[in-house]
């Protein structure tokens, strides 16, 4: 590297100039923007290395189990930097999402030491943690000998990092003082509205701001769409039907899945009057203006339909809209985003979130080396690299959200995305009660919703039956 370029980068690393000024300066020296970013990334890596003995586990190999996802793509694209920084080697297996969690369960339940770390959702740790399959990462985070001083744990968005920590007590608050840090987020999804600007503008539709308006707008949109439908939400017989838009709207009415009594016992909370009213509206929305084959819709169908212009909007993961607004999708460039508070009386949205995180296997034979990888992949440098260069959205760190280049990237192509995120991030967290029967109860909840939409059972009766069944299962499990 030439002296002038070195000088500019060192000045940036000392905080004496902004990233944009640096890139402009490098540009004037004939360095392309892409090369400038690479140089900057390398310089960041050097700076990290200067503060911490990254070479401590040089020569060690860690093996990862990854889900096929843009977050995994970002990780893989940046691996050479990690290898150069640490002298470690990283091997990985990537599986499609349909079978990914089966693979994780099989590997962990058999006590296999094949994988040192793996991608996980926060909900899954409510099974893996108490089962003794994953390690509490607090012991590493809090050990200055093992953790880079520039790791900046406090930089994680509070709602996101706390959602990955649980004390293992059924009903225990996420992120409580005695919570164990079962995983660390790579990135996360909020559930908000993604709508088709072209369809909305052509038909004079306004972006809905609460559940009643959502019903009306979805109905109006369906009426003007030739063969399409108004609003996409998930409907398959799976826990994944409950956690996106449905629970985000539900939580906005201050409704909960479970109550915790004074003795710490859990009971069903989904058959309150307010809950029944919300369920009725949700069911009506699907019946009037949802997908005709709603009961088989997973995130994939919900996303591809809005990307293909088959639906006017979706109430689902914001990053699903992000991906559908690009690539070869028919409606690429036409999608826009809006924060959504279902309750007209609510002051802000309260999106439930899905987190893709990294966890450490308790059966790993190289735990310290694995922690080196985990702190790197969840660290600020990789998060920024992923957010700027790849599709690591939504990044879990506040510093990345404050990064001008990242915000510019989003604002340029994704109308309303930054504003949506900023409006809903303060209320974003996991809204479920952490407990070991999570998947049983939410799958049954989804099956009950299917029956309600198919008019096999009235909403009131269906929710009472569900609550009775949930209580019976909780009691049977000693919860």
């Amino acid at each position: 590297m030439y002296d002038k370029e070195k000088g500019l980068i060192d000045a940036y690393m000392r905080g004496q100039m902004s990233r944009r000024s640096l890139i402009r300066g490098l540009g004037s020296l004939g360095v392309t923007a892409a090369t400038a970013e690479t140089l900057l990334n390398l310089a960041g890596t050097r700076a990290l290395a200067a503060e911490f003995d990254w070479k401590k586990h040089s020569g060690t190999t860690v093996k990862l189990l990854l889900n096929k996802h843009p977050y995994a793509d970002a990780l893989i694209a940046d691996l050479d930097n990690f290898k150069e920084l640490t002298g470690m080697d990283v091997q990985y297996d990537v599986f499609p999402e349909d079978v990914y969690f089966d693979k994780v369960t099989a590997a962990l339940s058999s006590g296999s030491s094949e994988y040192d770390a793996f991608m996980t959702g926060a909900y899954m740790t409510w099974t893996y943690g108490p089962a003794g399959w994953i390690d509490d990462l607090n012991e590493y985070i809090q050990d200055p000998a093992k953790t880079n001083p520039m790791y900046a744990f406090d930089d994680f968005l509070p709602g996101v990092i706390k959602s990955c920590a649980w004390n293992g007590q059924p009903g225990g608050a996420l992120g409580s003082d005695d919570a164990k840090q079962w995983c660390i987020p790579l990135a996360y999804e909020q559930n908000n509205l993604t709508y088709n600007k072209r369809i909305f503008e052509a038909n004079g539709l306004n972006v809905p701001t609460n559940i009643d308006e959502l019903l009306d707008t979805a109905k109006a949109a369906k009426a003007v769409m030739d063969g399409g439908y108004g609003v996409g939400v998930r409907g398959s017989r799976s826990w994944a039907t409950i956690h996106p838009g449905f629970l985000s709207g539900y939580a906005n009415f201050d409704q909960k899945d479970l109550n915790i009594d004074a003795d710490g016992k859990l009971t069903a909370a989904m058959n309150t009057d307010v809950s029944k009213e919300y369920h009725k509206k949700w069911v009506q929305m699907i019946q009037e203006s949802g997908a005709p084959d709603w009961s088989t819709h997973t995130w994939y169908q919900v996303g591809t339909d809005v990307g293909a212009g088959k639906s006017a909007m979706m109430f689902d993961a914001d990053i699903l809209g992000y991906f559908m607004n690009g690539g070869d999708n028919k409606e690429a460039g036409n999608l826009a985003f809006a924060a959504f508070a279902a309750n007209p009386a609510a002051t802000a949205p309260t999106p439930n979130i899905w987190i893709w995180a990294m966890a450490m296997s308790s059966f790993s034979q190289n735990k310290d080396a694995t922690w080196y990888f985990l702190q790197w992949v969840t660290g600020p440098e990789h998060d920024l690299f992923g957010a700027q260069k790849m599709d690591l959205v939504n990044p879990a760190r506040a510093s990345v959200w404050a990064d001008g280049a990242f915000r510019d990237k989003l604002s340029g192509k994704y109308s309303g995305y930054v504003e949506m995120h900023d409006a809903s991030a303060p209320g974003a967290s996991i809204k479920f009660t952490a407990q070991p029967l999570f998947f049983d109860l939410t799958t049954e909840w989804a099956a009950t919703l299917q029956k309600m939409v198919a008019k096999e059972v009235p909403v009131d009766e269906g929710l009472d039956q569900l609550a009775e069944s949930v209580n019976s299962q909780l009691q049977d499990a000693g919860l």
Partner: protein
Amino acid sequence: MTTAMTGQPRPRRFRVSRRVLPYLLSLPALLTCIGILIPFATAVIYSLQRYRLSQPWARKFNWGENYLNFLSDSAFWNTLKVSVVYAGLTVVLELLLGLGIALLLQKRSRLNNFVSIMLLMPLMTAPALASLMWKLMTNPGFGILSYFASLIGLENFNWASDPQTAMLTVVIVDVWVYTPFIMILLLAGLRSLPQQPFEAAALDGVPRLFVFWRITLPMLTPFLLTATLFRVIESIQQFDIIYAMTQGGPGDRLTVFQVEAYLNFFQSTNVGRSAALLMILWAITYALSNVFIKNWLRLREKQRGEA
């Protein structure tokens, strides 16, 4: 030369005593049997335990409690009902269709041979892939079958996503995939039947329907039983078609044994209940197999006696 050879020690031959030989010969079968029985025994043990992976501290033997709980568990009875209905519908339809097609292709000709090979194509498709293909064909928005349904006045026919038609849809997919199996088995049976009774009936001018009911069908019964046995066992254990198309929904409409057991293990991590469900499925399969095999043996003896 001969002298030199006799001076050499004779090569030692590995001798096995007559008493040990039978054990040695049966050793591979024994090892295979152990290999099969270990997982089976493990499943039996799990089925007698209260065992959730998410609550390892609560793991204990509860002996028959998982089974007793089924008696008052409406989800279990629904699973049993759905599995039996699914197996019954698919096997009956596949037998009727398979037999009909086999009768049409019975006569050896180039065309019939070509058609019978073409009809085997669905059988070579992985059921999960076939399900995805059918999922696309029955998509209400762009599916070709939805389009055909609309042409005959079935607007908004929602196939697997409607509780009223979900069973019908998965049965159709199963029939599409597995009818060729029945067809090829019965076709082989038909072509192997002795020709004399048919020639005699033709000479006497016996009506075709009479020949079918009184000669073809009785002689074909062992083949029908074999085909039924295989299909009943597979149908009652169906997983991939149903899971790929509906995950057991809508509601609980298609929660057959394997789907319920899979969800119990991999999603709920309830190992005890999952294993108990599979043991019940094993018992049903075992009982059905016994019935079919006994009947098949009885028929064979009867036919030998007649011969």
